[in-house]
């Protein structure tokens, strides 16, 4: 198990490194960072001075190395725009994004898993059809559109929920639903498929042959096995959700990391965008790493292997 963790960690680091290279080089292809930094009202001299000041005239490899070694020690550079350390900036904004992500995935799991289980127990029942409908609709629903409709209905027409901001829990309800609904269909389908497969497996027949009550069969024998892949998927979805929170944050004016990313792209705030891509990737990497470890722990076959 330790060896598994070590190897898995090595792979995670390698992935992270590759992503860092890609994000760094990708954004360096963008327009003149000095001009971006100088802003709309700057003169040519301003731009030139800034180019020197920030070292944009050095070779790219040197800049990458600087950036990477900084990143290792938690120094992600200084935002061109805010003139503040990116790390602090992101840490601030991440709280909201993380909160949103946690709420979203919780919402998704709380709706998807029970629905999936019931749908698998009663295939073709009303609930199964409802679950299928919800998941098909969820996959097709453009989340920006869904969010806008929620605002119109619940904030404007009914006046129940605040349309933007983060001050109270009520502010998080609509964003959570929009974000969670994005992850729900996949989790629901996997739960349903996993349960269906497990329920038709030989060891479920064995459990029934022992005279185990249906609840024991379902929850002790079946769900335990069906849930293992769901854990991985939830981790993956959580990673995607954080990266995909841009849309939701921009609709509900949540000043989270996703919104910061969007604005930073528009402002050509390179250090922030680079750092955000890296941070979002790291989240994905960490989540999948944890889920793999959790999986290995949940699944005795992997625990021994």
């Amino acid at each position: 198990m330790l060896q598994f963790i070590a190897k898995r960690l090595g792979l995670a680091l390698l992935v992270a490194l590759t992503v860092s290279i890609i994000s760094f080089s990708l954004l360096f292809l963008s327009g003149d960072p000095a001009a971006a930094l100088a802003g709309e009202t700057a003169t040519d001299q301003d731009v030139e001075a800034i180019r020197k000041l920030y070292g944009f005239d050095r070779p790219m490899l040197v800049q990458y190395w600087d950036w990477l070694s900084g990143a290792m020690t938690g120094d992600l550079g200084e935002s061109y725009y805010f003139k503040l350390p990116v790390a602090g900036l992101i840490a601030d904004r991440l709280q909201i994004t993380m909160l949103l992500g946690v709420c979203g995935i919780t919402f998704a799991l709380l709706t998807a898993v029970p629905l999936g289980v019931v749908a698998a127990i009663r295939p073709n029942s009303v609930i199964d059809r409802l679950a299928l409908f919800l998941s098909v609709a969820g996959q097709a629903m453009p989340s920006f559109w869904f969010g806008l409709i929620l605002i119109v209905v619940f904030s404007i027409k009914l006046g129940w929920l605040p349309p933007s901001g983060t001050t109270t829990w009520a502010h998080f309800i609509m964003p959570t639903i929009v974000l969670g609904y994005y992850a729900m269909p996949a989790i629901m389908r996997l739960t349903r498929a996993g349960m269906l497969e497990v329920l038709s497996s030989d060891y479920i027949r064995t459990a029934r042959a022992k005279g185990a009550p249906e609840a024991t069969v379902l929850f002790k024998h079946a769900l335990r096995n069906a849930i293992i892949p769901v854990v991985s998927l939830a981790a993956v979805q959580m990673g995607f959700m954080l990266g995909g929170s841009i849309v939701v944050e921009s609709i509900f004016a949540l000043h989270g990391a996703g919104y910061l990313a969007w604005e930073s792209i528009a402002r050509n705030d390179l250090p922030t965008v680079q750092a955000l891509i890296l941070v979002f990737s790291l989240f994905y990497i960490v989540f999948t790493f944890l889920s793999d470890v959790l999986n290995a722990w949940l699944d005795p076959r992997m625990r021994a292997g």
Partner: protein
Amino acid sequence: MSDPLLTVRGLTINIPVGGGILHAVRGIDFDLRRGETLCIVGESGSGKSLTSLAVMGLLGGRIDRRARQMEFDGIDLTGAGSRAMRRLRGDRMSMIFQEPMTSLNPAYTIGDQLTEALLLHRKVGREAARARAIELLEKVGITAAASRLGQYPHQLSGGLRQRVMIAMALMCEPELIIADEPTTALDVTIQAQILRLLVDLTREMDMAMILITHDLGVVARVADKVAVMYAGELVETGSATDVFNAPMHPYTRGLLRCIPQPGKTERGARLGTIPGIVPSLVGGVTGCPFRTRCDQAVERCRDDIPRHEPDPGHAFRCVHETGHNPAEVQP
């Protein structure tokens, strides 16, 4: 002789499938007494597993099972609710499945799974259940039984798992044990060991056993009574000696000619064959299902087929009283 432990009369199983109704099992009868071993033999798809699952009450909800009579020790199984069936299963009758690799839950230890049935059906503590599990593991020939309890199924080889399955089936000292092809997935050497174990244990514990297999060799060595199944029907039943030494139904005879028998069949010579393929059981099925492949078939085979009982306990269903078409010259 005592009353039969299990009586089955007119068991019929219908499964709705895409193209209609699959008449998978059609009106089969058999009895089983305590301590007796019944072997159901037949080709793949002939309905053996369905029959056993029907007895256990483990057919899925979609599948329609009916019987004129199906009693276990006086308990009417056709009318029993799911709760009553649950109380029987794992306690008074238990089952061993074909695939030892997949029949154990990968997520729980051997110990958990062994003790489950006992904890469910008997008022015993965990410790007592563990002790019983260890005792049974030793009985099925597993050494270091205590340490095995903490292991997971994937850590055991196929042979060992099948032994665990057997131990699991025996936890509550059932009166009836149903083994559905318990050795098909195993190597020949392991097969012999497992079969020996099963035979010894049933004898020792005075259990009745239904053993399902497609291997005539196994049947001959293990069975007290044999039931030959073809396309959902029992075409011939009788004691092992009767069926193997004096097979009456053309299908039974054909099967026996098909297998090479060291010492009996001439090496390299042509084996007997049964031509053709099994008929589809979807839709209306009448007459003898074997008639399309039978070398004794006559026009009457399309009608109802009578049952003959040349010896007490030895019965077969064929239009010909002897199993041979009298019109054909017999060798």
